[in-house]
């Protein structure tokens, strides 16, 4: 089912959480709402679910106006960051809840409910835990119960609010893969909120980058990473080196003249240039402008801190390449820029 958001605005006191947001969620896709805290991503998700009320705008679920509908009428599955399982109910009763509260006429029989719940618990690999209480499960297991519970109402849309936010790194990664696979199997239109760019880029079909109640960019993970539409998106997606510079004749020069960066023709005057650490090349050169001020090895990669005439930079390369270069802290080096993006100074 497709979701069409147009002109949604929401104000909390003097804080504008959403500012005339337009967004289309395509049927069957897995969409990520990515942004820092306070960017309005969770508010947008909660408005879609009917847990929050928009001040103005419209929301179409499958072409029908939905803002006036209660959460009950929208039939959306919602998964909370902190699971929100019913503590006094067993795993089984949690999953069965959505079916048991249906109006008498639409309520499945208890054998049908039992069959369906066990099927869902099978799907989330928790069939053995049906009689446990939420307090007896680990975080990852609880979140899978929450997912099974949300799927039990056969929702048209699945909305997930930071679904992996409360889990530790390893479980988060497993659950992420598992969710990706689940989505490939059942193809339900899904929207999830995250502040973790890696999560968004790995999991989503399309990523929506938000900032201060506005959408900065919508696109595939490769698109938003390779061709960020704004300085904010560039900075938010991954590590960056940032230079204040002035562009003239297609070249961006830093104030101290230590670096000149090729810029495309559209920008002129004061600007900001961004270079990803892995786009920064180094070579040993006794007369070079840079000095290696530190080297940190993280797994297979090495991060090299450079002091370029007072400007701190970070470069990244694999360890083998670093040992081939033979750079050590204190060495002088030359700096090459393979790729850069230049945005006009706001």
């Amino acid at each position, binding site marked *: 089912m497709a979701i069409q958001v147009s002109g949604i605005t929401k104000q909390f006191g003097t804080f504008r959480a959403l500012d005339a947001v337009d967004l289309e969620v395509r049927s069957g896709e897995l969409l990520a709402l990515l942004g820092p805290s306070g960017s309005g991503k969770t508010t947008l998700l909660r408005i879609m*679910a009917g*847990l929050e009320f928009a001040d103005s705008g419209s929301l179409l679920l499958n072409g029908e106006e939905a803002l006036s509908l*209660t*959460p009950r009428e929208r039939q959306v599955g*919602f998964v909370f960051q902190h699971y*929100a399982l019913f503590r006094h109910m067993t795993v089984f009763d949690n999953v069965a*809840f959505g079916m048991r*509260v249906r109006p008498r006429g639409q309520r499945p029989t208890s054998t049908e409910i039992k069959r369906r719940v066990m099927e869902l618990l099978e799907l989330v690999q928790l069939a053995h835990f049906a009689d446990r209480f939420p307090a007896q499960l680990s975080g990852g297991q609880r979140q899978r119960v929450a997912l099974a519970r949300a799927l039990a109402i056969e929702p048209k849309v699945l909305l997930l609010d930071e679904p992996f936010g409360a889990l530790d790194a390893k479980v988060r990664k497993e659950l992420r893969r598992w969710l990706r696979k689940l989505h490939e199997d059942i193809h339900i239109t899904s929207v999830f909120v995250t502040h973790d760019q890696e999560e968004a880029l790995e999991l989503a079909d399309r990523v929506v980058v938000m900032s201060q109640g506005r959408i900065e960019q919508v696109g595939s993970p490769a698109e938003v990473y390779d061709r960020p539409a704004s300085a904010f998106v560039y900075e938010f997606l991954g590590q960056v080196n940032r230079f204040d510079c002035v562009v003239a004749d297609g070249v961006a020069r830093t104030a101290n003249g230590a670096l000149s960066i090729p810029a495309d023709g559209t920008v002129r005057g004061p600007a900001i240039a961004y270079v990803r650490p892995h786009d920064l090349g180094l070579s040993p050169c006794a007369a070079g402008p840079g000095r290696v001020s530190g080297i940190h090895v993280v797994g297979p990669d090495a991060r090299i801190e450079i002091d370029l005439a007072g400007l701190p930079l970070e470069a990244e390369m694999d360890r083998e390449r670093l040992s081939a270069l033979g750079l050590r802290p204190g060495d002088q080096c030359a700096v090459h820029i393979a790729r850069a993006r230049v945005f006009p100074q706001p």
Partner: protein
Amino acid sequence: MVAATTSDAVLPNTGGTVLSVLRKPSVLPGFGLTLGFTLTYLSLIVLLPLAALALKAAGLGWSGFWDAVLTPRVLAAFKVSFGLSLAAAAVNAVFGFIVAWVLVRYRFPGDRIVDALVDLPFALPTAVAGIALSALYAPNGWIGSLLMEWFGLRVAFTPLGIAIALTFIGLPFVVRTVQPILQDLPPEEEEAAAALGATRWQSFRRVVFPALLPALLTGFALAFARGVGEYGSVIFIAGNIPGLSEIIPLLIVIKLEQYDYAGAAAVGVLMLMASFMLLLALNLLQAWMRSRHAR
């Protein structure tokens, strides 16, 4: 004296065999000290007087004890005290819950004042409460006269009056036990229920209420215990007709006035046992409910 010797036996052994059996390894310090203090304190303040009471009653002998308590007047007083305390606690459970709900869930002008009013039955001398209530509910009082006129209902100087007095003094217990739990209830659970298609009523009945039930039960037990022991407010409104509206505490006072100390002690012991059993049962019920979701 029994109590004093038990605490003596434990105290010098701090860290020794007695405690090491009771104690699980823990980094929290002060187990021996605090346990010793707790036992000594409880012995002096609670167990010693109760033991003295039992000792006094024991002076009657086994058959003398039962002769003293199994009289129609005493049994009727038990029925009045326990029956009406349970009824009043039940009324408080319902209305105290509603008061707590309103105080937590809604903001309205004067909500702080209402919140403070709830504690008044704690602070007011119970005799004052009793006199005020009997003045109001007496056949010529403000409320009593109306009830008499409209329904032909006599409240003051009947068991109904006792129930009203016990409800008055028991209200804060339910409100103050339910309030903090309701306050801390995460809104997500209700939101989850709504998103799963539950109506407001369904999410209250299936999600909110079960989470509050242990606290409600605690409030009920406290209000009940307070009601059983209440004296001051009841004697003014009860009419104190033996066999009809006479409560156990009053009966004990009457026995004391007749210099029947052993008889008074016997009734006291029986009352103590009955209360203890009921409270224990309520506590076990609660522990069972808690165990269902806290592991």
